[in-house]
Each structure stands twice: as C-alpha cells, then as structure tokens.
C-alpha cells in the first residue's frame, strides 16, 4: 500500500471564548437523573386497533355514524318490527298519492302502497348490495393489489395495467353494457348486481392496497422476517397485509356508500334490480312520475338513501383520522 501523506491539518483545539464564561451546574436535587432508557408506562397495553378504538369512542362524528349504521342494519334485519303493513299486499289504487293517514305515517305511493313499509323493506336489498359488493371488492381488489405491490416486476406491470383498463370504464356506462349480456338480462337480481359492481369497483381498492403494500414491503421488520426463514408469501400474509390494511378499510367504508348509490342509480335507470324487488332505487324510480303531485313519495326513500350513505362516508372519515399512521403515537 502507498505511503500516506497526511492530508489533514493539525488537531483542532477546543475554543476559548473572548468573554468570561461561567461554569453553571444545576442543583442536582432539582434535576434528578433517571436511569437511562427506563420508560415503562403503567397504562394497559395498546395495539394500533385498540388505540384507534379509544380515539374513536370520543369522536362525535363516529358516534353519530355508528348509531345510524346500527339502526339501518337493524331495520334491514327485522323490517317487520317497524311496520305492520306488508309492503306490496295492501296497495289500493284508491289510496294513490294519498297523504299521511292513521297507520300510514308517511302516506302512499302512486300505486297506493304504504311509503313507510316500502322504505323499511327496501333497506334490505340496498344494504345487501352495498355490503356484498364492498366485501367482494375488498377481497378481489385487495388480493390483486397486494400481489402486484409485493412481488412487483412483470406481475405488477400486468395487474396494474389490467386495473387501469377497468378503472378507465365509467361504472354506469359499463353496467349498462354488461346488463345487455343475455345472462345478466335474464338473471337480474341482487347477486348479479353485486357482480357487476365488483367488476368495475375492484381497481380502486387494488390501487390503494398496492400503494400501502409497497410502503410496508421494504420495512425492516419484513426483512427481519425474511431472514428468519419466513417465505415471501408468508411474510406477505403475516406482516405486510396486516400493516397495509388501515387505508383499505377506510376506502372500503366510503365505497360501501358509493355502491348503495350505484344500485339506486342503476335501478332508477331501469337496469338495476327488477321492479318486483323492493329497493330505494326502485322506489325513487317509481316516484319520479308523480314528482309534482306527491313529492313525498320521492322524499322518503331519498332521505333514507342519503342518511345511510352519509353515515358510511362519515364512518370512513372518522376511521381515516383514527388509523392515520402519522397520527399514531411513537
């Protein structure tokens, strides 16, 4: 090796000030020195979810939306508890567009059916579509997004482009086209509608999951798990996905509201649920012809729809704040 010539100047000396500097020492009794690194709190152990829950419990936004959602789910499960009228049986044209009457709190539709009964019984199908479309989208979109984000490379390139293609098709337009396929035209029910909504809804969740997974995949704890001998897929399932879940849940709650609206839109256009299935969308569709004479027939299902969607979107907002990684305590 070559002989070195020392390139650095002579050692630096500590500087001395031109001004008198007093050597101050704080009173030791007032500044006790704790043992290094002895942070042990007495609080109960908290995980991300528990902390989020503790945070949520105090938020009015969350409380209101949770109460509303529980109420809506309850109505959907036990519609019989809320109205004595069977929604379709006692429709009498003599009651057409009638105002509120004893036993018929909200009045009648053009067909003479009880509005309250129709709104109450319509909850079920609207909520079912929203809920199952969301679950389906989270599973399909989440899986595709997680795989493409985690493995990257050509897998990612193909899956991401595929998602982009579906993303580019507007939901309503795509649904109108799909409904013309004979299979869907002949089997119009809640489940085919869920399938249609899933087909156009998954890319959004896939994108969110992909981004979240990419962020987590390079974390040291994933590398640590890999060097423990955990397989790539095992690390994805055990470490990456649980840590990437928070934003997906937030978007899922918001899209639940959007799917309920989409069902109503499609039903309103006459290509969603068949007319004999009760849903808010069908009711709104039916009420449009008597808009000027009996606006309340449109108002009540519309109100139910807006409140439900609003409460899901509010829940998503509250969750977003509670699960925001930046707000997490370190």
């Amino acid at each position, binding site marked *: *090796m*070559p002989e*070195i*010539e*020392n*390139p*650095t100047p*002579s*050692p*630096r*000396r*500590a*500087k*001395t*000030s*031109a*001004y008198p*500097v*007093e*050597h*101050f*020492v*704080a009173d*030791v009794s*007032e*500044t006790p*020195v*704790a043992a*290094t*690194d002895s*942070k*042990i*709190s007495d*609080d109960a*152990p*908290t*995980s*991300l979810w528990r*902390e989020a829950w503790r945070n949520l419990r105090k938020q009015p936004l969350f409380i209101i939306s949770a109460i509303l959602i529980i109420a809506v789910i309850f109505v959907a499960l036990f519609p019989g508890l809320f109205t004595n009228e069977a929604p379709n049986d006692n429709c009498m044209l003599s009651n057409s567009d009638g105002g509120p009457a004893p036993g018929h709190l909200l009045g009648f539709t053009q067909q003479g059916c009880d509005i309250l009964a129709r709104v109450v019984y319509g909850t079920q199908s609207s909520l079912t579509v929203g809920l199952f479309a969301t679950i389906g989208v989270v599973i399909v979109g989440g899986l595709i997004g997680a795989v493409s984000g985690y493995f990257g490379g050509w897998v990612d390139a193909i899956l991401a482009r595929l998602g982009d293609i579906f993303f580019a098709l507007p939901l309503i337009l795509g649904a109108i086209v799909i409904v013309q396929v004979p299979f869907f035209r002949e089997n119009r029910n809640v489940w085919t509608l869920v399938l249609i909504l899933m087909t156009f809804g998954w890319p959004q969740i896939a994108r969110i999951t992909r981004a979240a997974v990419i962020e987590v995949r390079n*974390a*040291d*704890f994933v*590398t*640590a*798990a*890999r*060097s*423990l*001998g*955990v397989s790539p897929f*095992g690390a994805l399932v055990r*470490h990456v996905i*649980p*840590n990437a879940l928070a934003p997906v849940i937030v978007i899922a709650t918001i899209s639940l509201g959007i799917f309920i609206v989409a069902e109503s839109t499609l039903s309103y256009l006459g290509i969603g649920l068949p007319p004999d299935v009760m849903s808010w969308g069908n009711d709104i569709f039916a009420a449009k012809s008597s808009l000027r004479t009996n606006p309340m027939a449109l108002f009540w299902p519309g109100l139910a729809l807006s409140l439900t969607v609003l409460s899901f979107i509010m829940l998503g907002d509250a969750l977003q704040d509670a699960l925001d990684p930046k707000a*997490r*305590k*370190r």
Partner: protein
Amino acid sequence: MNGAEMNTENPSAQNPVAPLLELKDLAITFKTNNGEVPAVKRADLTIMPGETVAIVGESGSGKSTTALAAIGLLPSNGRVSGGSIVFDGEDLTNVSEKRMIQLRGSSIGMVPQDPMSNLNPVWKIGFQVKETLKANGLPSGPKDVAKVLTEAGLPDAAARANQYPHEFSGGMRQRALIAIGLACRPRLLIADEPTSALDVTVQRQILDHLETMTDELGTAVLLITHDLGLAAERAHKVVVMYKGQVVESGPALELLTNPQHPYTQKLVASAPSLASRRIESSKGTGRESDEVLAPHAEDLQTDNVIEVKNLVKVYKIRGGWGKSSDFKAVDDVSFAIKRGTTTAVVGESGSGKSTVAKMVLGLEDATDGSITFDGVDITSLGRKEMFNFRRRVQPIFQDPYGSLDPMYNIFRTIEEPLRVHGVGNAKSREAKVRNLLDQVALPASMMQRFPNELSGGQRQRVAIARALALDPEVVICDEAVSALDVLVQAQILKLLADLQSELGLSYLFITHDLAVVRQIADHVCVMEKGKLVEKGTTDDVFEKPQTAYTQALLDAIPGAGLMLPPEVA
C-alpha cells in the same frame, strides 16, 4: 474579535458588551390531549456576539424547542409560558409576529436539520436563495445569488444555481441551506443538527466551512447537537440539557474535563468519540475501561466462522430503450470473521457495506465470489439448507422503529422465529421468550406490550432478543446503534459485548461510525466505493492507518483531534 467591534453601538451600564441573545428562566409548554405538558423548564442561556454556543442533549431533551422559541417558530400547540427571550436588547417574549418576521433571516438565520427535506424540490436552488434575499430587501440578481452560494463553498455557483435540489448531494444541499441561512448576514445563526444526516468526512468539511464563514462575518452561532464531542470541538461554550432543563453549562473544555452534574458525567463517560480517545491514551496503563469486555482477538486461536472471498455484486441500472449499465456496488471484497470475535465493516454511505451484509445474510445473491459459512458455501445452498442456515445467522437493523412489526406484541415478535422453525411447544416457547427478555434486561411484563409503547433502546433490545431466539452463531448488526441516543447506545453496545462473552457470538458490525468501532470491534474492514481499502485489527487500523481514506475517516470523528489534557485520560 470582530464580534466585539460590532457591538460597540450598544451601550450598557456595567458591561461594555451586552449579550446578543439572552434566555432567562425560559419555560415552554405544549398543549396535548393530556393537558399542558412542560417541554422546557427554567432554561438560562446567554450568547455573546460572535460566540458559538452549543446545546447538547438527547432526543426529547428540549434542545430544539429552546432554539425554535428564540426564533419564534414554536409549533402551534407550544407557547412560552414563563421567562424572557431578549435578543440584542429587545424583548422577544411577546413580540408581534410582524416584528418577528423582520428579524428572521436578517437578524437571526437558521440552518435546519435535514438537508434532504428542507429544500423545496420543485424550485431551482438559485430561486430559493433569491427568495431569501428578496424577502429581506437585499439585491437579488443572479450575481448576488452566485456570490452567496460561492461563499458557502459551492464550486461553480452560477451554474449550480440553475440546478434542482435532487441534482445535489447531501453535502451540497446542506451548503445551499447554509448559504440561505447566512445570505442576509444575520447576527445569530441557529444551526439545528446541521450535519447529523451526513457522512463524517462531509460533516467535517461543512462544519469547517461554517466556522470560517461565521468567524469572518462575526456571526454568533447557536449549534444544536446530540454529539458532545462535536459540541466541544466547535463551540466556545457548551450547554447540556436534560429533560427540558439546563443541567450544566460552561466553557467547552472545562465541561469535558471537569463535569459536575451526574448527567454530564454520564454523558462524558459514554460519548463514543471521547471514549475512543480515552482507550487510546490509556493503552500504556492497561485496559481499565469496561468498553473492552470482549476477549481480545489475538488471544483466541479459533477458526473462521465466515469467510468472504472475492465478493462482487453488480446491479444493472436501467437506461432508456433496453440499454442498461452496470454498477459495481461491491467490488472484490474478501475478509473473514473469527469465531467469537467482532469484525466491523466501516464506510460512508454508498460504500457498499450494507450490500455486503445483505449478501452474507443470504438476502441478496452475489454476482461473483463466495461466502463460506462453517466451511459451506452459502451461495450454493438449496431451499431447505438455506432455511437451516437462517437459524445460525441473524440480523439486527438500524431503525428500532422500523424493525419491529407494529401489529405484533413483544411476545409474538420474539416468539416468531421459534414458531417459524417449529421449536418446542407453546409452553417451552414462552419460557424461552421470558429467558430472552431476561438476557436483554427487559422485564417479563413487557411481553404484552406493543412496539409503539417502547422507547428506541427498548425496541432495539427486543430486536436483539428476537435475533438471539434461535441461538445463532453469527449476528449481523447493520448500523444497530446509529439511531440511538449516546447513553442508550453505550448501554446497547455493552449488552452486545456481554452477550458475546456469554454466548460466544460472532458479530459482523456494519457501521459508518468509527468511534463505535473502537468500542466494540476486534477487526476492521474499511470500504470505499465498493472496494475494501484497508483491513486489520482495530488497534492497527486506528493507530497506524495505512491509507489516506482511513486517515481522513479517523480525523473526521468529532472530538478526535481535541487535545485533552493528559490527566483526563
């Protein structure tokens, strides 16, 4: 001193020179969900014109908060709740925001900590300097901008001003930030950890330049740092803060040689740069300091547990249109780790040291060369053999916040390796976890906690426990202590040394910090730009460095060149 001349227009009854900045009995509180929390209590600080004062303290000690209060930039939930801030005879404690804006830049400048995030990526460097000049009513033509940048030591400033921040290296960005901070010739410059994100050699250049500049301009500097060695070397006066209080302040040298407060004493004893100096000078009298717990390398007649031969790693860098160029991250590196000893790989960022660690861990494939573990080449291992190899070599990473899964509680974190390798049943695994926690000196009550509830040092202990769960023979520490406060760092290093002598572990210690190497390693390999430039025993490398690069690294250790009187040693 020109600082004194500058201040002659400031008449004062007793003292001809009034302090430039005086914090008296300062208290700062933060509003949190749990009410008002005091961040700084009874802090006193005086900066004379032209003087450099350093505030030293660990993270959370309130050192940055104090400095931010002086420039009126406390976060919105913080407020000055007591005491006074007097700048150049003017009380700034309750001054209007308008007056504060006048003072910022023109009278008090600031160099922020992180050069990577403190320049706006969408504006050219020149524009960002111009903005500062304009805001303070100074001429801001291209020539003035270039002049300011040249002063901060940026070569070819006129052309550089037209570049964007991403085209600058970390050191160049920090120079640009210093240029901005000093552009308007402030009387006081607040430098908040100005170089902690940079390599040591760059750190030294930047600080040298900053010192020359502020000396010429007569600017007083308030330097905030966690590094006592750096503070002692650069400042006239050192202020030590601990838990929001000033525990000791005084002339830099006196504080080092004669620390009075127990906290300062602890700090002086554990500061790696100073400790390494101590070992060096105590060599004749024998090794009394407890840093040298590991058995000495030369005494051991053992085999090599890992041998790395002619290791090469080439990354393909993709260019446009299918063209790709080769980048040699690791170039012909050979070294061996003797069983039961510590080998350190030292280098600056981009030297390829972490890539070496990844290849030894089997997480990256080597392009060429061999890595032999216990006589078996790991580059040719099958899937099953690799799985078994993983039991015997375990990593510890740098960032204690990133290396533990936030969703796993401590028990699950430490148990995971046992579960993955199917060791024992649920009961024996729990016993093992308790035992491991005990080994890293954490209470068993910690098991149900989650990482976010632990401090950095505690997390690093958990990471060590997890690495030890499978009774490995080799532990690869990738910058394992760089992210920790000095006192915690000293504790973790001691823990690592204890575990080594107890369990006969071999360490591969990857670090950029030569001072730490001195405390823990038996052998050192110095890497520069992917090449191994020097290797040898720690003592040889530190005392008789063979290459200019190693010498430069050694010189750049803050406080290394500080001439301590012999009696301290």
